[in-house]
């Protein structure tokens, strides 16, 4: 060992390092990012096909459909959050890393949100247009999706950590996450509906924001604990 005075990395270096690596991986495999987006668009297409093209009806169900589709699409991408790391052994390396595990887990969740939640928010106006959503409502919808997908990624990371390495993990993950995610869906979709009906919608925005902040401060610890337990 060399007589070298080491410079300690900062507390967030683990966050940036894991986020950067996962973004790099996503860049090299764009399919993993695009597939959930296509899924999102397809689910949104299913509803007009199933219930008919009546403009009035579509306008009415639009917020709900977009939100359900966003939830399902997030769920679809969550399964792979830790699976790749589990299979090639890098999850074990993260567990013995000198960086705090909650920070590393948060870095991975951040990368997940940047590659799944944020793209959803960005393409949602196009789909909202096909549902005749008024232009004034679209920013509200994007804001609810922005806050909501943050919460969903964080909640989902707990579920993904609990089910990593289990057989039939995908179905189980949905079973664990959907009931936890119901308040987010309920707040998000109804806030958009309120905005579309020219009602006061700020309560929903505040509640979603509070949910996102609470999950941001608590979920990484739960995820880290779950990762340690799953890898015993």
């Amino acid at each position, binding site marked *: *060992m*060399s*007589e*070298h005075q*080491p*410079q*300690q*990395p900062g507390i967030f*270096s*683990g966050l*940036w*390092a*894991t986020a*950067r*690596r996962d973004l*790099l*991986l996503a860049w*090299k*495999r764009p399919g993993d990012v695009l597939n959930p987006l296509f899924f999102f668009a397809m689910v949104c297409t299913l509803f007009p096909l199933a219930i008919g093209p009546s403009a009035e009806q579509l306008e009415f169900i639009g917020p709900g459909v977009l939100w359900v589709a966003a939830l399902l699409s997030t769920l679809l991408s969550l399964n792979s959050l830790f699976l790749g790391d589990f299979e*090639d*052994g*890098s*999850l*074990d*390396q993260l*567990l*013995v*890393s*000198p*960086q*705090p595990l909650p920070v590393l887990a948060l870095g991975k969740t951040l990368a997940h949100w940047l590659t799944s939640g944020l793209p959803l928010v960005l393409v949602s106006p196009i789909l909202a247009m096909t549902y005749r959503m008024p232009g004034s409502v679209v920013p509200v919808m994007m804001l609810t999706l922005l806050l909501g997908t943050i919460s969903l990624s964080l909640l989902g990371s707990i579920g993904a950590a609990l089910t990593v390495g289990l057989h039939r993990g995908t179905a189980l993950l949905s079973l664990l996450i959907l009931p936890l995610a119901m308040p987010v869906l309920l707040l998000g979709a109804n806030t958009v509906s309120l905005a579309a009906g020219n009602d006061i919608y700020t309560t929903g925005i505040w509640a979603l924001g509070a949910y996102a902040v609470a999950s941001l401060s608590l979920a990484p610890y739960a995820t880290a604990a779950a990762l*340690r337990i799953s*890898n*015993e």
Partner: protein
Amino acid sequence: MTARLAADNLTLIRGERCLFEGLDFALNDGELLLLEGRNGCGKTSLMRAIAGMLSLETGQVLWNGVPVLKQRQTFHGELVWLAHRTGLKGDLNMVENLHFEESLRPQSGRDREAVYARLGIERLKRLPLRSLSAGQQRRVALARMLLADVPLWLMDEPFTNLDREGRKLVMELAEEHLAAGGLCVMAAHQDVEIGAPVTKIHMQ
């Protein structure tokens, strides 16, 4: 005097099976701990237990006299684990993989190019790891271990996928590490010739 790395009365039960019971050892600077035994006898589990990744039925692992679970971050900062699975990303190239590992640790004083040259991987820098052979990937994992520049090496079957030359290289590296005052825990099911004080644990 407290040993650098010590185990006190370790018992591990996985499911219905007791893998080891009442296991003790003590390891000091410059010493090698060799875990011997058939496949599936619990060598990897013991190594995971040393790294603080398993919850033990009884006992604890101590680093500088302090239980590792009470100083997880510090302890992990002083060990590197060469696992059976390399833990490297096949889609990234060698430099990207090693850069990620380096950014998690304090900057080491090691000369990167010299390490690459020693391991014979200096030409593989820009290739995705997926395209390398298993032996070459193992050498990249060895590079990560050397660049971490830490006292404790945990090596789980370090000779897997390596040719005769590679095996010799691993033994040399371990010997140098021990001679410089490092510690090494090694699980192997074949003969190991390393010139250093050795403690052996034969697992049933």
